[in-house]
């Protein structure tokens, strides 16, 4: 190894194994001096490059990580809430649309219909069974027998279907039968508002609402309709 090799090694790779160089350095004062100068230079360079690091840097990094982790957790939670809220909204929207055809919505429609056409309650007609069945034929239903004095019988629209509006005399007050083909209900349900009470019965082609102010009349006509009304 000559002086040029030694100096090249020391200048390019200060971490180079010194043992290889020691033999030359032991016999070359110039290179030995160069080594000392190089070591001094490396020390100054290292000192210059190893600047002070701001106090608390490590703590700030760790704190930032903790805050970021909390923020991510909060964002994930918010995302789940947003998804849950969307699902909730969707369910309610669909449920709301379905609710229009549900018996509970239908009962309010039926009650309102009677209120809106309350004048039929005061008709004085005496409609025979045959005439009544003539009206009911349009709805594919019939009564097997007379179940009460019929004072009104007509066709009307209830929601989106054509229905039948029949008023019969009860013991104390008129009883309305609303025949609603196409409006299906799964089971008998009660209903009421401030003026009337009633029940909705399922029939083969839809449902029948029986509405009265008097509970006794209601029970009588509910039984009678179950026994005598049939779909043709």
């Amino acid at each position, binding site marked *: 190894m000559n002086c040029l090799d030694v100096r090249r090694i020391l*200048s390019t790779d200060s971490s180079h194994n010194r043992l290889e160089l020691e033999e030359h350095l032991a016999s070359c004062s110039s290179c030995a001096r160069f080594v000392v100068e190089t070591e001094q230079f490396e020390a100054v*360079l290292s000192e210059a490059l190893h*600047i002070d690091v701001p106090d608390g840097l490590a703590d700030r990094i760790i704190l930032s990580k903790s805050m970021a982790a909390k923020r991510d957790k909060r964002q994930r939670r918010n995302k789940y809430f947003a998804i849950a809220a969307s699902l909730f909204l969707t369910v309610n929207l669909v449920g709301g649309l379905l609710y229009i055809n549900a018996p509970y919505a239908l009962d309010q429609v039926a009650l309102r219909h009677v209120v809106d056409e309350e004048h039929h309650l005061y008709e004085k007609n005496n409609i025979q069974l045959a005439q009544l069945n003539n009206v009911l034929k349009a709805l594919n239903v019939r009564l097997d027998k007379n179940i009460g004095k019929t004072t009104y019988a007509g066709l009307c629209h209830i929601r989106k279907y054509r229905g039948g509006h029949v008023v019969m005399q009860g013991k104390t007050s008129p009883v309305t039968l609303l025949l609603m083909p196409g409006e299906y209900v799964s089971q008998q349900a009660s209903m009421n508002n401030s003026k009337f009470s009633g029940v909705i019965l399922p029939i083969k082609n839809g449902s029948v609402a029986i509405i009265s102010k008097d509970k006794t009349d209601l029970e009588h006509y509910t039984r009678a309709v179950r026994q005598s009304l049939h779909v043709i």
Partner: protein
Amino acid sequence: MDLQHIEFEALVHAYNKDLYRYAYWQCKSKALAEDMVQETFMRAWKALDKLENIKAAKAWLFTILRRELARHYQRNAASESSLEEIKFENIPGDEGIGDIEHFNLNRAIKALPDEYREPLLLQVIGGYSCDEIAKILDIKPGAVMTRAFRAKQKLRQVLLGNKSDSKMSEISK
């Protein structure tokens, strides 16, 4: 505290200073250097499960930092550096520099071309060998040695004056 948190904090305490120093000399701004190191450790935290060998942690962190710096410069072009240079030049002694000689050295380090400064920083601050630097920078070990040599040559000229010029020019032949 779970194991991952413990590992992360250990990495922060072990390497935050070297990373900061490297970042500072690359971007010449204290605030930016701290931001870069913060960002480096945030990314490291998110990818900690990918670090399989703890011995590779330092090189891994330096790689993340280098990428963050590159991303920063792509986004911001040269708009910041000129202002920071002026600030640096006008505040001798700002970095704990005791005298004008050190001030001149620091300015010279800053003024080194990137391809010279980077191997120097990785060698002196990172403590990497030429072979390791070659892998990090994806260049040949010979190129690392040449660039490190040229960086030191320039800095030596500043520090020691022209006294060593003749010796150094003899070596470079």
